[in-house]
């Protein structure tokens, strides 16, 4: 869609200095996709997140981390040792003309270098600085060592996930980093809105733990209102106050997700599925029931179990794609339990031109990335360029934009500042 590509981005080319590692990189990525000029400021040698796998063709290499690729597209990249006096001076110069700083260091680290919010706001009072950490900048747990599994547990998320006869589990993918960076971006843009009206910058102090607590839905309220600890680990089932329903069902080639009596303008949908089941000899006694009048919490467990047994047999006879396509036709709620391959092959995502191709000339390949998550009448998600190589834009930014001479640049390189 060429007309899509010609639309402008939502954000102006605001300058973002992005000091984050893998715990905060999504924040700058989202802003870059919306039009901001995001400059990743890496330590000499590169961001440690470049060592996080998986890797391109499974070859560990700082220029081949897929994790790093994914969350640093559309950014420019420079190297800078902010632990040296010269590096700090250069960083302050960059801050003068920047709109945002995003960082994910341990609380207190930047203050120790004279680059904390108080110091930077003296250099540029309009600066919005966002700090993404596991528990926030202050408080009894603020200095805790907390990779994803620990943060997910402290947020109460692992408690509600898994099977009852095994320990609580986390997603096999670092979601607390994702959620905190995502919610940080929302906070950053609220601070930006205020700054544009008032001229006043500020510090946005983000807690990954709290960002995950936000995703719990029931647990805090079950406890506060009823002193109940519902939602212990029910695996593939879903339990709310007395009755349990199956939500994950094995089928011919994997699993589907479905719940009996899911609040739909109901009757027709259940009946159409039961008709399909009856044709194959399943659920004959489910025919003729007035499903539209049944509330899911008013069923006896015995009834639920016997119906689920019949539905389960029917699902086992079909692939997830077949069941899903039938559900789309019948306007039923069933969804396939998709793998990454299923997602990439989704007809819906294809119809909306979701996937984008970015060139990686150094690798001699074009790589498929997740793309625009919205369509607009006026603006567009920006398909930009692949993530920067280590120090790729040093000359462009230090010489052309900051006005350092080639000689100064060489000296800084020699002294390992850049």
């Amino acid at each position, binding site marked *: 869609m060429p007309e899509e590509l010609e639309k402008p981005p*939502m954000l102006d080319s605001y300058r973002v200095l992005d000091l984050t590692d893998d715990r905060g990189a999504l924040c700058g990525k989202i802003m870059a996709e919306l039009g901001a000029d995001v400059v990743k400021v890496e330590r000499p040698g590169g961001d440690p997140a470049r060592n996080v796998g*998986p890797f391109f063709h499974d070859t560990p290499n700082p220029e081949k981390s897929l994790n790093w690729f*994914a969350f640093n597209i559309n950014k420019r990249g420079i190297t800078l040792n902010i632990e040296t006096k010269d590096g700090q001076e250069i960083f302050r110069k960059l801050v003068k003309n920047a709109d945002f700083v995003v960082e994910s260091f341990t609380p207190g680290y930047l203050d120790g270098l004279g680059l904390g919010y108080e110091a930077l706001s003296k250099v540029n009072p309009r600066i919005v600085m966002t700090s993404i950490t596991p*528990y926030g900048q202050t408080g009894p747990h603020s200095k805790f060592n907390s990779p994803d599994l620990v943060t997910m*547990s402290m947020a109460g998320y692992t408690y509600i996930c898994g099977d009852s006869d095994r320990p609580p589990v986390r997603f096999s993918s670092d979601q607390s980093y994702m959620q905190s960076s995502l919610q940080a971006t929302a906070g950053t843009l609220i601070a930006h809105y205020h700054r544009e009206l008032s001229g006043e910058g500020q510090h946005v102090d983000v807690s990954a733990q709290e960002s995950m607590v936000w995703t719990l839905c029931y647990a805090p309220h079950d406890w506060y209102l009823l002193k109940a600890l519902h939602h212990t680990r029910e695996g593939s089932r879903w339990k709310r106050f007395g009755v349990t329903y199956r939500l994950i069902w094995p089928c011919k080639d994997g699993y589907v997700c479905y*719940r009996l009596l899911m609040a739909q303008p109901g009757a027709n949908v259940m009946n159409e599925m039961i008709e399909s089941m009856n044709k194959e000899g399943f659920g004959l006694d489910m025919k003729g029931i007035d499903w539209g009048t049944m509330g899911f919490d008013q069923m006896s467990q015995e009834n639920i179990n016997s119906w689920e047994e019949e539905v389960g047999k029917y699902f086992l006879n079909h692939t997830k794609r077949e069941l899903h396509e039938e559900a789309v036709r019948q306007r039923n709620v069933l969804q396939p339990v998709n793998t990454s391959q299923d997602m990439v092959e989704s007809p819906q995502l294809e119809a909306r031109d979701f996937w984008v191709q970015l060139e990686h000339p150094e690798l001699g390949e074009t790589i498929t990335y997740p793309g625009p998550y919205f*369509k607009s009448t006026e603006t567009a998600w920006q398909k930009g360029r692949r993530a920067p190589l280590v120090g790729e834009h040093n000359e462009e930014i230090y010489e052309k934009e900051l006005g350092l001479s080639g000689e100064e640049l060489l000296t800084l390189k020699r002294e390992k500042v850049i």
Partner: protein
Amino acid sequence: MKKYPLEGLKVVDFSWIFTGPIVTKYLGDHGAEIIKIESAARPDGTRLMTPFAGGKMGMNTSGVYANYNSSKYSMNLNLREPRAVEIVKKLVARADIVLETFGPGVMGRLGLDYDALKGVKPDIVMLSMSMFGQYGPYAKQPTFGQLLQATNGFVHLLGWPDRSPSLPVAAYTDYIAPWYVLIALMSALDYRRRTGKGQYIDLAMQEASVHLASPVVMDYTINGRIQNRMGNNCPGAAPHGVYPCQGEERWCAIAVFSDDEWQDLCKVMDNPEWTRSPKFDTLPHRAENIEELDELMGKWTINFTPEEVMAKLQAVGVAAGVVQTGQDLVDNDPQLKHRRHFVEMDHAEMGKHLTERPPFQLSKTPSEPQRPFPSFGEHTELVCKEILGMDDQEFAELIGAGVLA
């Protein structure tokens, strides 16, 4: 009192369930005016969701609804009535944002699509959030976040590799979209400030959610690998698990990424004999023997409460954390108290309940729930008379005609 950052911003909110209401709670808690449109024929379904105060189901007693709807006005409008549609247009004419989460096409059938609303407010920012987007082969399939998390790969990635996947009980993708919606709205307001132009945004929960699994997807697009759930295992770390502790269903998570951390952990455990085995001397060896390692770790942790394990290990910089329950979060967690994550509110009918503050704290501008969640239709009269300037007679007549229902 400092000024709220979004004071003066006006939002007409047709959203319901979780995603949209979380967005407008954020806007409202930061000072925006939120007029939430609900009808008796179709109240926000979250009003009827457990848990209820005192266990008593009612329109104004749901804990989840209470959490997601602070700082809003609730207005009853029967949108099937042409005069209700006219009232919406009057509200939109003075608004900055319209948010809706109906199925694709519903706003058009009501005569309230972007073209119609642009007619009364040319620079309006209108956003439709839906599961799959406004068009595409699956766009019109009705579904729920609880199931969409399966479509988006998160179910496949949760649980044990030798078993069926597990279900995240809280619909995970419902908690990805709100912040993408908020980001899009704040960015569209920035665009409007600079250009004077509004816009219509079609945002798909499915598409936004894929971004949070990007490395998993790219491992397939590049390496052809379909990643699977792996319990609590994690490449590059061992031990990396959740271990049983003293008490019923008490657990502690421990994650060790470096050999130095492993040595520190061993010291805290008083260097038992087994830790000196060559099976556990390096990360690759520990990873190879992860099942045995997990079992041995569990034999140590079971002697302590999870709080004790966390305190001992964090004291030497080893990553450990209690698997907290709702009770821990609400009653005990000193960090959440320090950050004032939960705020206790009092509602005329429901009484005391909790609402959350954002995970981000802005150093110079406040964010607080302005009021507890609105009772169903609580502000219909206020909106009609004080905001739209209706007189008593017209208001009574609209009530009588079932327009404000």
